């Protein structure tokens, strides 16, 4: 278990380098995307999603097992009203801060101390949601 965590760390490192080297953690690039004035972000999504889908097809087709020898299994997300309200709320924050959760960590790592404030605010948001969860429509 412990050894494997380094594998997840390594995958995170590669993911993080890719996000920052492709400018996917840039506030400016997000505004460009939301204004349909550049292709970089669309290009990333339009190649990432099919790459993942084709890889999963290959895994299923050849019944490739995990490192532990287990079959690969995907737990599907069950729809509830939060899938409507949550993304609307998240979208506002995404456009204002120019970051979704992943890029916040990447920005901090790149030396932007102000992103620590974004992270603390996001943690506060997650905490308040958790607290209010029983009272919110789902």
């Amino acid at each position: 278990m412990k050894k494997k965590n380094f594998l997840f760390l390594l995958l995170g490192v590669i993911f993080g380098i890719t996000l920052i080297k492709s400018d996917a953690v840039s506030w400016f690039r997000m505004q460009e995307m939301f204004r349909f004035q550049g292709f970089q972000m669309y290009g990333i999504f339009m190649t990432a999603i099919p790459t993942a889908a084709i890889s999963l097809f290959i895994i299923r087709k050849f019944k490739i097992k995990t490192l532990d020898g287990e079959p690969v299994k995907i737990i599907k997300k069950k729809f509830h009203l939060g899938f409507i309200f949550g993304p609307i709320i998240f979208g506002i924050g995404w456009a204002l801060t120019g970051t979704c959760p992943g890029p916040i960590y990447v920005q901090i790592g790149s030396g932007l101390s102000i992103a620590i404030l974004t992270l603390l605010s996001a943690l506060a948001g997650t905490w308040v949601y958790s607290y209010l969860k029983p009272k919110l429509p789902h």
Partner: protein
Amino acid sequence: MNLFDLLRQPWPWYVAGPIIGLTVPLLLLAGNKMLGISSSLRHVCAICFPGDVSFLKYNWKEQLWNIFFAAGLLIGGFIGGVLLKPVTPMPLSEATTKTLNSFGISNTQPLLPTEIFSWAHLFTWQHLLIVIGGGFLVGFGTRYGNGCTSGHGIFGLSTFQWPSLVAVILFFASGILTSHFILPLLLK
């Protein structure tokens, strides 16, 4: 050109997209883990300040991989942003540069506009609303909606989950409206 110079350049979408996409099968093969980053915020809350909140009381030790992945993002940010800092950054489109200039944002080069995201310029109510208010909404909305750009946008869509498609359409539409109508109000 050596490898270091090559890696140091900004990476085009056709290099970055496939690497990001491959993370999905690699996490599954490494241990049936489903790509998603916003959950790490919940785990941090559960580890550091669970209080008396039932949603934050669960065995987070089983989800430690997600914290390791997030820690990897921090390290990746350092490697990509400091060690592999590009000599010439990827240019921003002229149209976006013009729009942002009209909002009083002149320097469009680093990752964040220093006119908003810097300790010197943070303390106006508009800027606090953008940074702290925006950050709060990211944390609140991703948990309420059960995912973010990676969990719904990359993982959910590539595994053909319709609830994720609903989420992606809505957070995208909401982002477009915010960028066009709310952000200008806060910057002028």
